[in-house]
């Protein structure tokens, strides 16, 4: 394992070790690039994961202070918890469900294909499906995505079987057990899924891909990657020429350290990445680093989500097996005749009893609520994930609240766009219809949870005035400063974002290594 000097200014510093940073760190290390990865959380491996919802939440979730505002219900029900993401080596790849689907071609060009939408700040990505196809293939191979390559699909569990039968009764055609980064057979030294449930709490079998036990140790094994755990980056530093030179961070003992760097890559997810750029403001960059466009922290997207749970007269036992066990893709198309632009996926989801009590109807009480839980064993569930509109007013600003290091925390402001609401209502209606088609006696359109898909706050743009980074994730303003996580998303598309984050990270590593060799950065 590598151990680099704080004054070694030849290293690439990566902030965050999730789907973006963790993959980028390994990919660069494999190419012989020296990397210091700074991770705010600790290191947890399959033997450490806890199959108990609240206990696991306490172990893995990012619980540092954040504040919220806006009309979204999360701001009322979970005011200090706008996102359900992970603070640990491997980031939220520990928690994710594993759904790994590519963007549809039209989604790369949302502005062109949807047209301007009032109140939305739509923009085309500076890349497209053809450009990304080979990188998607590399990502699918890395993650072992089922139903890609020659990898078989996973078997359907009880929750899926209910969902599939209802969906097919409605005439849906694209119904299957998903393209999942969960092994249907042993793959890449990791075993096959044992249908244990608790995918959100970290896979104790290692059957689900997580950077924590794949890319991170693979990168460390090269001798080119040093991961510093419990290292909370406070500020990115720059010189008079406007190039970044290193980062200041609080180490595990709370001492401020300074690591020099040739290149800095920010991958702290869509709240922490813009927060760090804003907290790095200087006399040369008074509005924060890489922010000449004013777009750092803006255009926050969280996918149009929600859930539908339904009760049947007989047991389903939805918690058994993979948490996200199948998908309906028919509604993912762009078809404005439905009353909204963009589309959505329906994916099965199960929560254990403790989280169902917390999330079914936050704040709810009385018999309307408890008679739903009384039939928990007979419940099936699905999650909506659809494209939401980027809006200038949605996003991350610095709060008056300070964290444990005295740094201003992220305030997350979010208001639903009318398109988001129309899409969610359509999805609720379709989801309920799916369950009613198999005899549901009662259905629950459940509001969005704290966000797991956090996107867009350092968006990619062709023109520097429209966004923060170019098509390589390289900031328009500072050539040796990159963004490597989902915050670079120009638009959100309907698909779960991790596969795209991984594909972009593999592609970015290629670009960075090439430019370093050419001595252009």
């Amino acid at each position, binding site marked *: 394992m590598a151990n680099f000097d704080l004054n070694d200014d030849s290293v690439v510093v990566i902030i965050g070790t999730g789907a973006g940073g963790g993959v980028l760190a390994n990919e660069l290390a494999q190419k012989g690039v020296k990397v210091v990865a700074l991770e705010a959380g600790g290191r947890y491996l399959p033997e450490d994961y806890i199959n108990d*919802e609240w206990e696991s939440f306490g172990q893995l979730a990012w619980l540092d202070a954040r504040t919220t505002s806006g009309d979204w219900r999360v701001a009322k029900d979970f005011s200090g918890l706008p996102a359900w993401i992970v603070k640990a080596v491997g980031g939220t790849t520990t928690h994710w469900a594993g759904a790994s689907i590519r963007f549809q071609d039209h989604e790369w060009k949302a502005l062109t294909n949807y047209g301007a939408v009032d109140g939305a700040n739509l923009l085309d990505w500076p890349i497209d499906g053809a450009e990304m196809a080979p990188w998607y293939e590399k990502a699918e191979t890395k993650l072992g995505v089922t139903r890609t390559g020659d990898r078989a699909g996973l078997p359907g569990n009880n929750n899926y079987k209910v969902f599939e039968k209802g969906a097919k009764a409605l005439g849906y055609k694209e119904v299957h057990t998903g393209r999942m980064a969960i092994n249907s057979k042993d793959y890449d030294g990791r075993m096959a899924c044992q249908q244990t*449930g608790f995918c959100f709490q970290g896979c104790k079998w290692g059957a689900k891909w997580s950077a924590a036990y794949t890319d991170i140790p693979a990168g460390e094994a090269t001798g080119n990657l040093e991961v510093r755990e419990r290292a909370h980056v406070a500020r990115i530093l720059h010189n008079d020429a406007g190039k970044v030179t290193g980062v200041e961070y609080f180490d595990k003992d709370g001492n401020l350290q300074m690591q020099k760097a040739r290149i800095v890559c920010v991958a702290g997810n869509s709240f922490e990445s813009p927060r760090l750029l804003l907290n790095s403001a200087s006399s040369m960059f008074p509005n924060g680093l890489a922010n000449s466009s004013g777009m750092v922290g803006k255009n926050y997207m969280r996918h149009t989500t929600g859930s539908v749970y339904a009760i049947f007269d007989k047991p389903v*036992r939805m918690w058994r097996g993979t948490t996200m066990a199948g998908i309906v893709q028919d509604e993912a198309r762009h078809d404005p005749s439905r009353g909204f632009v963009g589309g959505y996926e329906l994916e099965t989801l199960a929560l*254990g009893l*403790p989280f169902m009590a917390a999330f079914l109807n936050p704040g709810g*009480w009385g018999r309307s609520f408890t008679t739903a839980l009384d039939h928990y064993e007979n419940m099936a569930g699905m999650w909506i994930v659809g494209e939401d509109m980027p809006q200038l007013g949605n996003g991350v600003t610095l709060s008056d609240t300070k964290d444990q290091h005295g740094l201003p925390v992220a305030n997350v402001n979010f208001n639903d766009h009318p398109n988001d609401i129309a899409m969610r209502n359509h999805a609720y209606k379709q989801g309920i219809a799916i369950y009613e088609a*198999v005899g549901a006696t009662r259905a629950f359109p459940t509001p969005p949870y704290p966000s797991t898909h956090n996107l867009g706050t350092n968006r990619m743009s062709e023109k520097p005035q429209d966004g923060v980074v170019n098509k390589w994730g390289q900031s328009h303003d500072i050539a040796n400063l990159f963004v490597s996580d989902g915050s670079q998303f120009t638009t959100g598309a309907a698909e779960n974002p991790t596969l795209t984050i991984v594909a972009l990270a593999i592609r970015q590593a290629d670009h960075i290594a090439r430019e370093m060799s050419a001595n252009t950065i």
Partner: protein
Amino acid sequence: MGIERLNKTGMTRRALLGRAIAAGALTVTGVGFVAAPNAAWAMEVTVITPAQMAALLQMARDIYPHDQVPDKFYAVAVKGYDAEDKKALVEAGIAELDAAAKAQGHADYVSIGWEEDRVKVLTAIAAGTFFNTVRAGLVTGLYNQKEVWPIFGYEGESFSQGGYIDRGFDDIDWL
């Protein structure tokens, strides 16, 4: 949690009903205990009054009523309010609750016979801090008791048994 915790928190089977005075579905014994009428369990309170604990228990059941869940689990969920740092909250909160009951023509909250009428009283204070503190606390205090899970059919972790790959992950037979 579970039996060990029940014992640690002072709940044991006790025959305390001899001197009992009725208070709703529960019994306030008058000597620092709240007990079930059938003596299935009793809870000692040391900081707040037995009457306040009885009101909290009734409130817990009215907020999250599960007829198949015995009182002892609700007792575990609210036991933490018998503490010095909660005393002021409980005193003011139960006073608020009883005042709302009086405003609706009742003697106090726990003596209201029908749940429907108690819910009307709770609704009157539902925007307040006390109600929301108790409600939010119950979400974990009640539903995160592992001993409650089987009552709802929830099986908890399965890793120790090798998951459900050979134990019914796809055994649905009624579709």
